[in-house]
Each structure stands twice: as C-alpha cells, then as structure tokens.
C-alpha cells in the first residue's frame, strides 16, 4: 500500500482563505469550542460558494464576540449587546450583502435581548449565530440568562436558581423563520445548518452549545472541553421539528438538538416594499438599498 503521496496543492489549512491568518493563533483557551464553531461557519461559507466579498460579519463583546476579528470578511466588532442592531443597520443599508451576527449568549440574549426579539419580529434578513456556553466567559464566568439551574458561576457560587431562557423558543416565538440548535460536537450537522441559514431569506437563529472549558467546566468540576464534548455525545437527542416547549436545558441532563423551525415568511424589506407598493402604486420604486455610494 502507498504511504502518503505528496499532494499537488499547497499545504495550507483549507480554511486559511476565510480566516485572518495574521491574527491566528486566536485568544481562545485550550479545549474551548469556539474555534470549532468558526470552522463550521468557514466551511459553510466555503461550500455554499457564496461570494465572500458580499458577506459581512458583526459581533458583540465576549469571547464569542472576538469571532468577527478572525474571519476574513468585512467584519465589525461592536459593543456589548448591540451586534444585532448594528447588523440590522448594515443589512438595511446593504441588502445586497449577507450579514451574519456571531456572538455569545450573554451578548445576544441578556444585554441584547430586546434587539434579538425585535429584529426577529421584523424578520430582517440576518443570520444570527449564538454560541451558548451557559456563562459570561469573557468577564470571568458569571451567571448568564442561559445558565442551567444549580450550575455554579462566579456570581452564583452556590448555584444558579433562576429559570434560564429557552433560546430556540424565544427566537421562534419572536418571529425567526429558521431555528436550529446543535453543539460544537455536531460539526457536520452544524455546518449544514449554517449553510441552510445562509441560504434562508429572513431571520435565522442557530444556537450552538459549545464548551467553555476554563470557566464553566472548571467551576462546575465537569473536566475539560473534551469532557463536555463527550457529554454532548452521550446526552444529545436529535428531535427535528419538536415542540419548542420541550427544549429547555437542565443542568447536565439531556440536550435536545435539531432543526426546529424552517418556514417561509416575507422579510422586513419584502414587507416594506409590498406595503408601499399598495399605497403608492407603480410610482413606488422598490427599496433595494445602497450600492456603497453615498446618497444612493
């Protein structure tokens, strides 16, 4: 049998064309799952053959918020919680681009929760990736609105006793047309979900459960990120299209994953155009946004 044949192609990581290699290695800890989620997005972008010049990525603040800085795309690292409204402005100004929001659970559903529900309500054509590590990682592991009951954090040292959010339920009931949840372990399904979300017109929301090894795992004595990946392996149940009231996450128990919502609904801009067309008739020039020139 043959030993490895030298491939004709240059030996660079296939994702180097989508990553900012001058900024790698990234800041994330060993066994943190964030890099895996980035690879899934990079792969999805690559495989969907979308024009990378026409993709913008917006992040808020947090460990996850650093993603925008590592993607070789037009990228915007904004303020804590405001990635979605910033991205919304970008999208409305430039509907010709696909605008992606990539941020953390605290960023998107705590401080930015209002923006999440309203932008989903409008069904703006944005793709939102929410990495749920059950914690505020960047600031040292404080309790989040996603922390499961009894899980410990630096500000819930005796355990969290507040009800956490059920993110797919929140996104779907606010109006998202595509809602899925996967973990960093479900790398192929996650990539597929990203591809579907990229192609979806309207507000898509993908929750990605990912290990925060340094803070969540350690504080709760759950081992390393690898142990969390093994936990996902043993405890995830795939239930496509299931009743979203069932997808709550309890501490160290079953996690329901899958594609929960995939429906068609006119987008924010579709609705404006339709409404104004009815009012103004043929005089109305459908809004298509700017072309990068002022005063379009």
């Amino acid at each position, binding site marked *: 049998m043959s030993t490895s*044949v030298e*491939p004709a192609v240059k030996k660079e990581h296939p994702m180097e064309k989508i990553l900012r290699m001058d900024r790698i290695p990234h800041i994330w800890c*060993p066994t943190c799952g964030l890099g895996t989620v980035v*690879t899934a997005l990079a792969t999805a972008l690559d495989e969907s053959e979308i024009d990378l010049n026409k993709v913008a990525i917006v992040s808020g603040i947090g460990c996850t918020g650093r993603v925008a800085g590592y993607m070789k795309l037009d990228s915007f690292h904004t303020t804590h919680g405001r990635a979605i409204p910033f991205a919304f402005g970008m999208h409305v100004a430039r509907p010709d681009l696909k605008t992606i929001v990539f941020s953390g659970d605290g960023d998107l559903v705590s401080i930015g929760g209002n923006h999440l529900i309203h932008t989903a309500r409008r069904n703006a054509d944005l793709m939102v990736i929410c990495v749920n590590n059950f914690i505020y990682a960047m600031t040292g592991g404080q309790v989040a609105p996603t922390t499961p009951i009894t899980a410990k954090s630096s500000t819930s040292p005796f355990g969290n006793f507040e009800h956490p959010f059920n993110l797919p339920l929140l996104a779907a009931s606010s109006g998202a047309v595509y809602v899925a949840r996967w973990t960093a372990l479900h790398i192929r399904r996650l990539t597929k979900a990203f591809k579907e979300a990229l192609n979806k017109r309207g507000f898509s929301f993908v929750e990605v459960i990912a290990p925060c090894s340094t803070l969540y795992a350690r504080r709760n004595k759950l081992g390393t990120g690898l142990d969390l990946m093994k936990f996902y392996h043993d405890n995830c149940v795939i239930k496509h299209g299931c009743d979203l009231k069932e997808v709550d996450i309890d501490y160290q128990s079953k996690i329901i994953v899958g594609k929960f919502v995939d429906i068609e609904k006119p987008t924010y801009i579709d609705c404006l155009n339709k409404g104004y067309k009815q009012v103004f008739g043929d005089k109305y020039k459908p809004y298509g946004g700017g072309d990068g020139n002022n005063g379009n």
Partner: protein
Amino acid sequence: MKFWRTPLDIDQLKIPKGDVHILEERCKGCGFCVEYCPKGVLKLSDKFNSKGYHPPVVIKPGECVNCDLCEMICPDFAIFCLRVEEVNKEVASES
C-alpha cells in the same frame, strides 16, 4: 479495507485516502481530533510544542479515510487532511 461481500463495482470504487497535516505550533493539545477520528489515526504525542502543548501524531498513516473530521473539529485550525488520489487499485487488491 474489508467488505462483507465484494461490491459489484469494486473496480470503480474509490476508498478515499487522506494525508493528515498537523500544524504543531498552532495546536493546544485539546485531544478533540484524537477522540473523534473514526479510524484511530491519531494520538497525542509526548513531545511539547513551544507553547507547552502535546500536538497529535499520526500513528496509523494508512488508515486515514480523509473524512476531515479532525480538521473540522479542531478549534485551533491546527490539523487538516488532504485527499490522496489514485489509491483505488490498491484498495481493490487488498480486499
């Protein structure tokens, strides 16, 4: 590669074969690739990279099926696999 019966199209079948590349200096020794390689191709080595992590080594070079799982699951963009072409004949003769 073993088959429970010889496929009819064995002469056309290509079992993909991969060549794993490890960017040792980028690796943070998380072990994801080792754990999830379906073919047990990898193992964490005893050696240290300059950051003090143990990067993986290939222990079964012929077994890699170029499934890219290591590449996709690696959080540090430190491992990737390239397809090695023209191995179908050998696969056929081995079966």
